[in-house]
């Protein structure tokens, strides 16, 4: 079987839309609400989850034949927790500003249901390479939703993107214009509504759902 056979491509791409972890399986919503008020933490969070899901999947897949069935969830948790700790330590050492911004949410990746879901449902019964692709796909499926929500929330809530001003200052009411930032956008509730809109859009595009 080649590395990018049809089945493997399917494993990689299906979580992006058809089987999206956030929009279809409705997993990982909690962190999707928490870190998307601005675009930058959303991107870093998406990437961290992608890396951790991919490597946790590989490790569990390599160990899958040796893991005692009764403690398999504990083993999965230990693997995820150690990977998350590693990533958070590395961020603190080499990307301090980002780690300050993400604060507790890196640690909370441990409790992200997407990870446990993929480990239990996929890595426990597939080979390392397929599991790696599945992890990357699921991570990216989560990441793009975060980025989309973060994009809308930062643009309309703050008038900026990645901290750069997009909506010109002169349009604001304080400076004699007509525009006011939408304070709702910075609230977690609005993120839930945006995720809801995304789910609606995805379902409308894909008739089979």
């Amino acid at each position, binding site marked *: 079987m080649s590395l990018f056979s049809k089945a493997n491509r399917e494993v990689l791409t299906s979580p992006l839309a058809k089987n999206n972890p956030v929009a279809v399986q409705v997993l990982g919503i909690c962190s999707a609400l928490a870190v998307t*008020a*601005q675009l930058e933490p959303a991107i870093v969070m998406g990437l961290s989850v992608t890396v951790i899901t991919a490597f946790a999947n590989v490790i569990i897949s390599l160990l899958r*034949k*040796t*893991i*005692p*069935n*009764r*403690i398999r969830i*504990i*083993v999965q948790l*230990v693997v995820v927790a*150690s990977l998350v*700790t*590693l990533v958070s*330590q*590395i961020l*603190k*050492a*080499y990307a*301090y500003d980002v780690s*300050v911004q993400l*604060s*507790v949410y890196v640690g909370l990746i441990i409790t992200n249901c997407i990870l446990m879901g993929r480990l239990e449902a996929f890595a426990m019964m597939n080979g390392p390479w397929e599991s790696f692709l599945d992890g990357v796909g699921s991570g990216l499926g989560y990441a793009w939703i975060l980025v989309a929500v973060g994009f809308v*929330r*930062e643009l309309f*809530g*703050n008038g900026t993107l990645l901290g750069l001003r997009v909506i010109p200052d002169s349009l604001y009411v304080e400076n004699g214009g007509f525009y006011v930032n939408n*304070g709702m*956008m*910075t*609230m977690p509730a609005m993120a839930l509504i945006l995720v809801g809109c995304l789910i609606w859009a995805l379902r409308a595009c894909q008739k089979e759902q």
Partner: protein
Amino acid sequence: MDTNKNSYTIIYASVMVIVVAFLLAFVSSALKPTQDQNVELDKKKQILASLGLRDLDGAEAVEKAYSEAVVCDLVVDSLGNVLKDGKNKDKDGFVVPQKEISPSCLPVYVCKIKDETKYVIPMTGRGLWGGLWGYMAINADLRTVFGAYFSHESETAGLGALIADKPFQEKFIGKNIFAEGDSTGTPALCVVKNGKVEAGKDKTQVDGITGATLTSVGVSNMVQDGLKQYVGYFKSLEQKR
């Protein structure tokens, strides 16, 4: 091999825990020096930001600007006694952790900006969701603010978190710490609701952030409590002149 045997499960779990413990302990101790450096550098950046020296690129620029601007870091108490004179640079006031700032242990950074002396004092407080902290640079007259820097643990992004941004912090520049004709020595500088600055008090009142009232109140309390602790030191400085 039977992976369901009790003995196998126990041995598997033990080996896994030991391996993971060693791995994490190794990584943690290997990265500790770099992380400590980052924390130190970040603190220097914050002190420089309160002096209006922002957007410094790279660690070297920060170190250079810091060693030029900050003359010494003392530890004083609320009565104005100097406990450590700050002769060992970065070893006296600088190493005091935020949590240990108390009336009997108050760090002060004596700085020189364009040959004028400024005093930077740290302050800590509580916001809506978590801790707040900041640095305030005070002019040599000990009555007006030269600059301020605030940050927070977990205030609402886009609302309370705006206290960490330049526009809010710059509103403090040039404000008076004490009310006009004040003789009690109680700091009057505070944050009020956005647009609610009282007539005639615009030298001691700062506009808060709309939609972040509790964070604004937190900053206000932090500034007042912080300044109050240093009044004794300011008085002792004035007497020496």
